[in-house]
């Protein structure tokens, strides 16, 4: 079915189709319509799930952690300061290896207070152990929710599906709704490795000593370090699993491509612009203009940011003269986090990497400004490091 709806509705439909059983969320702009929609679905009986009203984002994720621990498919969503309020529980969900899915409707972080889009919220959660996917349009949001559950449950790692506040959450776009009868072929019922059972009680994630221990059955159990090693190991393995899931999705629904990267006109490119989310689709227009002017330039969207597709990026960017990373977030005191990550992935290889910052706190990213900045940069004009596109100081 082909419909026209906003990005939050696309996410809500995806969550309904995925058969999420427990939803716990606290409203925050620009995520609010998503949770409202889910609450309507449940209230009307259209969706069989339990909606847990909570007093905060911290409680929202805590409720999801509890639900997921009992073997329920759990979903939450938030933005900006709400995400930061969850922070402690975000680490917990990953350490506890619970396959919760959360939509992060990207929004700038206060202070100063700001409700518009940038990526500082989700980027600041980079090191929590969650998988991070970035959607560029509504199709990627609705399909992404299904893929996120499949991936989370396959590797026992929670997934954030990030999409741009307003630019995607509140704009209307046509997209395909995955056919309900095909869902079962793609997404199997959640079968957790372990689920809490009142008839067979156990303690989960209580104090875990630095060293290994012998448990009550006489088996040598992990220490904290072994548990964290396994999280890292499975994170790296998730790069392969994500692509397997993408391929299965393509097989069932007839669309989908590369789970990690999305190149546009990168063949023979001397310059490649790298970014996250809807900005990369806006850059398609910029690249078309610059290509018409004779510049050999392309765009590479990073769809999966954690685990970081370092090898795929290194392979895709080999032979490129320069990579320009444009980001809506930065690690204050240094540069954009994606830029640093990319430099590490390309260490010892040909391309130089330049970082630029744009769209902080919803500052409009004009296509003409992007075009002018990239044209001037490619022609060799000096820019600040990191260059801030659209800054008016």
């Amino acid at each position, binding site marked *: 079915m082909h419909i026209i709806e906003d990005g939050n509705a696309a996410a809500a439909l995806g969550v309904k189709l995925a058969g999420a059983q427990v939803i716990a969320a606290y409203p925050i702009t620009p995520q609010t319509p998503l949770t409202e929609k889910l609450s309507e679905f449940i209230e009307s009986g259209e969706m069989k799930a339990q909606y847990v009203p909570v007093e905060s984002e911290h409680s929202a994720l805590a409720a999801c952690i509890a639900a997921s621990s009992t073997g329920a498919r759990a979903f939450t969503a938030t933005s900006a300061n709400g995400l930061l309020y969850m922070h402690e529980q975000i680490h917990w969900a990953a350490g506890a290896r619970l396959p919760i899915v959360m939509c992060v409707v990207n929004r700038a972080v206060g202070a100063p207070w700001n409700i518009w889009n940038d990526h500082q919220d989700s980027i600041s959660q980079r090191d929590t152990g969650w998988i991070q996917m970035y959607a560029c349009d509504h199709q990627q949001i609705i399909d992404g929710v299904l893929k996120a559950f499949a991936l989370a449950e396959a590797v026992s790692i929670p997934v954030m599906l990030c999409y741009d506040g307003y630019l995607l959450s509140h704009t209307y776009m046509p997209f395909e709704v995955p056919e309900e009868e095909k869902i079962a072929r793609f997404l199997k019922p959640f079968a957790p490795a*372990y689920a809490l059972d009142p008839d067979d009680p156990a303690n989960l994630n209580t104090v875990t000593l630095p060293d*290994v221990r012998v448990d*009550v059955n006489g*088996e040598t*159990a992990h220490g904290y370090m*072994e548990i964290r090693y396994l*999280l890292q190991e499975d994170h790296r393995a998730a790069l392969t699993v994500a692509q397997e899931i993408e391929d299965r999705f393509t097989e069932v629904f007839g669309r989908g491509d590369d789970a990690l990267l999305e190149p546009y006109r990168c063949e023979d490119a001397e310059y490649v612009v790298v970014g996250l989310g809807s900005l990369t689709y806006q850059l398609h227009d910029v690249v078309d203009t610059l290509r018409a002017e004779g510049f050999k330039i392309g765009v590479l969207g990073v769809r999966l940011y954690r685990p970081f597709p370092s090898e795929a990026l290194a392979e895709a960017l080999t032979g490129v003269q320069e990579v320009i990373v444009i980001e809506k977030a930065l690690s204050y005191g240094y540069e954009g986090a994606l830029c640093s990550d990319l430099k590490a992935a390309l260490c010892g290889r040909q391309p130089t990497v330049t970082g630029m910052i744009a769209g902080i706190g919803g500052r409009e990213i004009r296509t003409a400004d992007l075009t002018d900045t990239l044209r001037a940069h490619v022609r060799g004009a000096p820019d600040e490091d990191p260059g801030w596109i659209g800054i008016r100081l």
Partner: protein
Amino acid sequence: MGTRGYRYKTSHSLSGPGDGGKTGSWRIQRPVIDLERCTPARRGTEVCFICWLYCPDSVISRTIPPVIDYEYCKGCGICAEECPTKAITMIDEADAYQDDEGLQACSTEGPRPCT
């Protein structure tokens, strides 16, 4: 032998001794019961047991006399604080090591469980 084959990927424990590790190794001071002052030991009857009641780790037995399980006693000292006859003293672990034999002064038959 490592933990690669362990059945869980997270921290999972069952209620039972030792599933949180041998927490007795955390102890800096250990509680020692003076049976001359301990009420149930002195009277040979089921009385008091304040130490058993207050122990947050349930490592003191409700027996005559009460026995402290040093494998799991973390040495918090609550029992010594609460004992109404001041029968429990906290002594340094370093000193206790030198005289480990004499510390658990039980009768030769061992502690008698309460009914």
